[in-house]
């Protein structure tokens, strides 16, 4: 088997793997602090602004074997205009699909859409495929019109202690992406400990990921507040050390507007207002958008809403 470094070519010294020095994570405090973000009270205009911001940060996702071009066209339509214009809701940040559905999505959205196309790649969701085919998959997906690639790390390699191989694979994928943005999925539900999450986050950021992302959505638990907090703190430390802003994308398990607002509060209080933009914070979700829209309509109509009156997730 060809080594990752051979496929990558020569990289400058700064882009070679050095085991990062990472702090240990205090499990009790991370969980307590993450839980504290759910206690903030957001009301009226601040709540409405938060709900609309959350919609603008959503990667509207469909990752099923039964996805069709029609389903993707529907999702694109929903992302461009989530609800009637009178509610003033911005478009979603992106649609997130499998590589084979990038082409139909691009046909539907056109070349200069405000809604980006993200595609999962590198043998999603397991990542247990040869690097050569993973890179080929990334190149073709980008050529088909993907703006963003959501790659999965090889958790097996990470857990076996082959951190250098994980680093090299991410770096190689970044190169294969070209102009496309790279999100690195850590699949935190399989990394077992917060210390592993922190280490994997640091490796992913140093190897060239533009975003770090919690989960594929295929493993439970998916995104949780404490895990996201660990990753946000890694991003903060990386910013202090290098001045580079890395984005964050929790994905999977975020279904209610209340949860989404708790994530926004956590981002604001951990990284500051700079990160409160779709360029640096995304939420991977499908049914969440319906709940956000229901709460937005509730704010203006002043009665509790029903999913029957909203588009399907």
């Amino acid at each position, binding site marked *: 088997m060809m080594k990752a470094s051979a496929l990558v070519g020569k990289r400058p010294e700064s882009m070679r793997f050095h085991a990062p020095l990472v702090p240990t994570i205090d499990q009790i405090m991370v969980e307590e602090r993450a839980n504290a973000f759910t206690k903030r009270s957001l009301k009226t205009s601040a709540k409405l602004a938060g709900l609309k911001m959350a919609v603008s940060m959503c990667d509207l996702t469909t990752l099923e074997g039964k996805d069709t071009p029609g389903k993707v066209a529907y999702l694109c339509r929903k992302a461009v205009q989530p609800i009637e214009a009178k509610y003033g809701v911005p478009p979603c940040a992106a649609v997130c699909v499998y590589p084979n559905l990038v082409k139909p999505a691009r046909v539907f959205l056109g070349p200069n859409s405000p809604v980006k196309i993200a595609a999962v790649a590198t043998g999603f969701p397991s990542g247990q495929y040869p690097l050569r085919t993973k890179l080929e998959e990334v190149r073709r997906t980008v050529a088909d019109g993907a703006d963003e690639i959501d790659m999965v790390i090889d958790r097996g390699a990470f857990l076996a202690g082959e951190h250098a191989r994980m680093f090299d694979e991410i770096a190689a994928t970044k190169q294969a992406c070209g102009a496309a943005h790279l999100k690195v999925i850590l699949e935190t539900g399989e990394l077992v400990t917060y210390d592993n999450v922190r280490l994997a986050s640091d490796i992913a950021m140093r190897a060239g990921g533009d975003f770090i992302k919690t989960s594929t959505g295929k493993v439970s638990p998916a995104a949780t507040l404490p895990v996201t907090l660990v990753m946000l703190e890694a991003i903060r430390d990386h910013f202090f050390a290098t001045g580079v802003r890395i984005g964050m994308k929790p994905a999977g398990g975020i279904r209610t507007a209340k949860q989404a607002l708790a994530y926004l509060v956590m981002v604001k209080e951990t990284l500051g207002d700079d990160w409160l933009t779709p360029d640096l914070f995304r939420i991977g979700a499908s049914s969440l958008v319906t709940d956000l829209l229901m709460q937005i309509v509730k704010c203006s109509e*002043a*009665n*509790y*809403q*029903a*999913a*029957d*009156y909203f588009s399907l997730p």
Partner: protein
Amino acid sequence: MSTPRLEVKKTYKLFIGGKFPRSESGRYLPAHSAAGAHLDNYAHASRKDFRDAVVAARSAAGGWARATAYLRGQILYRAAEMLQNRAGELVSEIARSTGARPAQARREVTLAIDRLVHYAGWTDKFAQIFSSVNPVASPHFNFTMPEPTGVVVVLAPDEPALLALVSLIAPVILSGNTAVVIASETFPLPAATFAEILATSDLPGGVVNLLTGQRAELVPHLASHMDVNAIVDGTGSAELQATLQGGSAVNLKRYTRRDLKAADWFADKAEDPYWILDTVEYKTAWHPMGV
């Protein structure tokens, strides 16, 4: 001289999604007997508790409607069994709340059990009795059958606190609806105890949700809630009726009023199988023939 034992006063909680949460508002109210004595405390539900109850009822609705009629009947019968088993508890709850004599209270509990058994029998019978095959002038087999409406809000009258509650809930849930029930305002404790019994009777969580508190505070919110499909109003109050019907216009909720005098709940008219039809939707199918 020994010190007198301090009484252990219970705080009855809400019943939402098969769990017993306190009110999210943190409020509670004192429950008084008819004679004015302080009995125990109970949760004072807020509009957000109602919202949570509707979410629980909605998520239980699909599974409950898909359960076979036979299974729904078994579960309602099981509820009657559990009620029988704990009849003494309910008798003393009614007696100390309303001041009724034990024999009177026992009569109410016994009737409540019988009514559950009565409606348990209807689960696998109402569909065929209230369905029809319709003559049509085209080569179609045309038939009409009832399906559950969805999430139903039930407002119980103040008295009889237990019997009226059971008589209102059973015909709603037997067809596959889920219910959010607002208990008697003057005597909430028998209803709260009934919820504790339901929790151990195989009824899936969320099929019956029970809120205690003040009706007038909740009514505007349940009237305007878009995810409530029907309201069964046993309160007999004209003001509440106006609000409820006004709100029903927003999303075309079915509104049914059951004005019975307290004594009438003990009579046959309170176990009317036609009550089942107030919370079902009729579906008509045209099946082509000779193709």
